[in-house]
């Protein structure tokens, strides 16, 4: 039944909906980063794709890929460097010594409970309507 298939596709789209996020920001001293184990750093990298490194002179490195070097004395990766007035100074590969770092910022996204609540209502509606579709006699 063509119409039934179309309606089931609509139902699927309707169930997916969109996700709203909430932001969790963490500010760490460079020493805290140095003390982290590799799995802890890997977890941070997975959750926070960007790393903001606030320098003591007011500059800011925005890393879109990063790692801590083996000696745990520098952050290495691809970054954009901003001045205190937030003009772009440079872009590209950067190695930032932790000595000059004031704070390290990470930002995590979590699905908002508002999003979860709407998804539950969507899912219940979709399940009930799907069951009704299934119970319809075929052609």
């Amino acid at each position: 039944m063509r119409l039934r298939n179309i309606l089931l596709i609509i139902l699927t789209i309707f169930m997916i909906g969109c996700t709203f996020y909430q932001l969790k920001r963490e500010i760490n001293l460079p020493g805290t980063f140095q003390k982290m184990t590799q799995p802890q750093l890997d977890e941070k990298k997975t959750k926070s794709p960007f790393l903001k490194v606030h320098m003591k002179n007011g500059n800011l490195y925005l890393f879109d890929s990063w790692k801590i070097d083996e000696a745990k004395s520098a952050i290495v990766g691809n970054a954009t460097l901003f001045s205190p007035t937030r003009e772009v100074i440079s872009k590209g590969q950067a190695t930032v010594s932790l000595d000059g770092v004031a704070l390290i910022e990470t930002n995590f996204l979590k699905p908002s409970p508002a999003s979860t609540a709407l998804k539950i209502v969507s899912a219940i509606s979709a399940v009930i309507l799907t069951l009704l579709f299934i119970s319809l006699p075929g052609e």
Partner: protein
Amino acid sequence: MVIVEGRKMNKIEVSMKKDEIFHLATFLILFLVISCKTFHAPPQYLPTAKQAQSDVYGGWIEVKTNKGNINGELIAIQEKRVFVADLRTLHEIDLEDILSARLVTYNPESSKVFFQTAGGIVSTSILAFLIAVLTAERASSLEEILGAIFLPAAIIIVATPIWVTVGTGAAIYQSNLPIIDYPKKPLDAFIPFARFPQGIPPDVDKNSIRMKIPKKEMK
């Protein structure tokens, strides 16, 4: 006659349900307007939660002091002062002068919650209506037609208030998520969302600092 009377009763019941739904919707909309915290950030100033991950500016702050109101970008909180930049200058506000303050850390996109709720109501209603049509197509008597309509109609009558209630609650929750209020929360909670969470470095010329200029399209 019984069927006719039954139909009349159904109409009255449906009409009462419609009134109840209308009153509930009006109440919930008023509740939504009252419960959602307001702020006056310029359009396009606030990044979304996703964009805030790579935004290099401070959050939007509205400070009420005993000398007047100051709105702008939160630059830093240090030495018992709050630094707020607008398009003209950098304001230094003594903590003791602050009556209240509101920080908005990102755009909550509450309108998306509203549209998803509206979409949920519309799609549930359309699909329930189509089920009724498909079932009624095969009905051979008036009783069967009424039977085919009953369940989808009940789904619409029950689902709409649930959608409205959950959607309103979700919109209120979402709109309040990125807001931090002082004195409800200490000003220390504002610091991670300042342009300089470490404080303004001594070498930086304070006169050069201006708030972020809102862009029409932010990546």
